[in-house]
């Protein structure tokens, strides 16, 4: 099982024998093969591997965006795969934050509106939203871009807004799918600095999917992945 050296920490997620098989006319494709993973609060885990190794699929399953074929997924000891569709949505908005590779922001919206959506879905009162949005933006040093149009931001700024959006609901786990994939080295490292800042408080964990060894090197631990098999600690 992939777990950190320190056993004194609290386990946030515990995944056991996770398997994902896609049905296919030419024969089923096994993307994940009995993956075991344990992640603790306050750590940043890199899942590293080549394209097609199954790392994004693992991330989607961990984010309850996709169901595994078999295996178990415990969150603080509770089986969360048994949640229904609505409960899973509720779980996502309260516990998880996502950062996607493609700098996905809502087009034709400004930065404030992009960050407001998670709060709208959470049912946060309107007057409570501006300070929380500003707080999240300040964590990525973009407080001055509050009402800028998302379409006019640079690639690096867009990704930092995406990180701020993932933070705005104060999640316990941030799942980032190649968050620096479309950024240059300088902006990539800037994003990593933000992630490092986030985990220093010790109440949030980050799982990053990447194929960049430099990015992986900045994580607490690296889990290499190949052909759907997650290898041991590095």
């Amino acid at each position: 099982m992939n777990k950190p050296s320190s056993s004194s920490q609290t386990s946030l997620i515990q995944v056991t024998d996770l398997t994902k098989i896609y049905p296919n006319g030419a024969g089923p494709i096994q993307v994940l093969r009995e993956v075991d993973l344990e992640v603790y609060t306050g750590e940043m885990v890199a899942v590293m591997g080549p394209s097609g190794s199954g790392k994004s699929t693992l991330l989607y399953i961990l984010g309850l965006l996709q169901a595994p074929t078999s295996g178990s997924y415990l969150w603080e000891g509770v089986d969360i795969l048994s949640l229904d569709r609505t409960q899973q949505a509720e779980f996502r908005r309260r516990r998880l934050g996502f950062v996607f590779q493609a700098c996905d922001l809502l087009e034709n919206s400004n930065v404030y509106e992009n960050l407001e959506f998670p709060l709208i879905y959470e049912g946060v009162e309107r007057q409570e939203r501006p300070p929380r949005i500003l707080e999240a933006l300040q964590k990525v040093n973009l407080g001055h871009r509050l009402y800028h149009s998302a379409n006019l931001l640079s690639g690096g700024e867009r990704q930092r807004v995406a990180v701020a959006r993932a933070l705005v609901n104060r999640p316990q786990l941030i799942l980032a799918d190649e968050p620096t994939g479309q950024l240059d080295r300088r902006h990539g490292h800037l994003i990593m600095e933000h992630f490092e800042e986030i985990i220093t408080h010790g109440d949030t964990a980050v799982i990053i999917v990447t194929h960049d060894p430099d990015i992986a090197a900045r994580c607490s631990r690296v889990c290499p992945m190949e052909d759907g098999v997650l290898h041991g600690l590095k």
Partner: protein
Amino acid sequence: MRFDDLVRVSLRQVVRHRRRYIGVVLAIAIGVAGFISIITMGQDVKKNFNEDLAFIGGVTIIRNVLEFRPQHPLTEFHPDTVKAIQKIPGVAMASLVGFEQIKGFWKGQPEFFSVVAVDENFWKMRGLEPRTGALFGPLAVKEHQRLAVLGPRLAQRLFGTIDVAGRTLELDNDIYQVVGVVEGLRDINMEKSIYVPLTTASDRFSKKLITDRLYVRCATWDDVPAVAKAIPKVVQAHQSAKNLLVEVSWENLTHVKRVAFWIEFFIYLAFAATLILGGMGIWNIMMAAVRTRTREIGLKKAMGAEDRDILSQFLTEALCLSLVAALIGVVLGRILVELLGLWVGMRPPEELFFTCLVISLIFAVALGVGAGLYPSIQAARMEVVSATRYE
């Protein structure tokens, strides 16, 4: 998702994508404006057409004659009978008329004139207007005044002109003052007649005037069959109706009604088509929106939006779209009603307009929900992972 957030977010989407929606909004707005103006002004326009006797060929006039038959004594319409007929639903007015050949003198020579004794309703009943001078009114009838209106052919024959107001004429040893020449008669014999007040003729003619003709004008052509059916019963209730002849231009009436039906049908069809196209437009545009906003849907679901949040957002967008279109349609409809009101010269009842307004808004809600429901369900059911990976 709270209701105020839902409306705010949906309206924002509609406003920001207004260029994409403008065609659909206009189609629905025109349909709603057409609906409001047709329903609100339809009755007034129809009434207006019904009053234009030249336009409809006088099909709303029912001619009632108490025929002379050897086995029956000569009869005339009693005043009670006329009053009762005027109370039949659908009757706009009734006019009692008597015809007589009266001896007069013209340039010292005796001459027989066709005289039509008419009441105060006769002119309006037949849609007649003065060509020159004036037509005598209710006061002349009430006061039994010796006034005469000439048919244009008679005026031309007697005086060589139609400007005859102020001239005099001797009829049955009485002098009558000519007040004008009438226009709009569609009968050559009527154009050669003299028109005098019914009361005056009854008093002064040496021969007893028999008022055996009663013209009844219906409010609309739709009233004609029912009124024609009711008249014999009403007459029978007050006097003998054995020699009563009720004449309706059935052929012309059928023709006019058929033409009116097809005009109305095609107008409704055009507006129904506009509204159906508008509904299909909403369907299409929402389906396209679901496709083009697939990544947005996936992203929102990843942020924690539930299926019902996505469903309600797309549905509210469709509703906002149709309601905004309906509101524009109501404003356009109001403008159209005002313009039509000026043209027709009538003001429709405000209650009718507000009823139409409410119906339009209800219709818009139904259209928005009906056309937006399926695309919204599609959006809500979308799998997050395929949506976030959608290119």
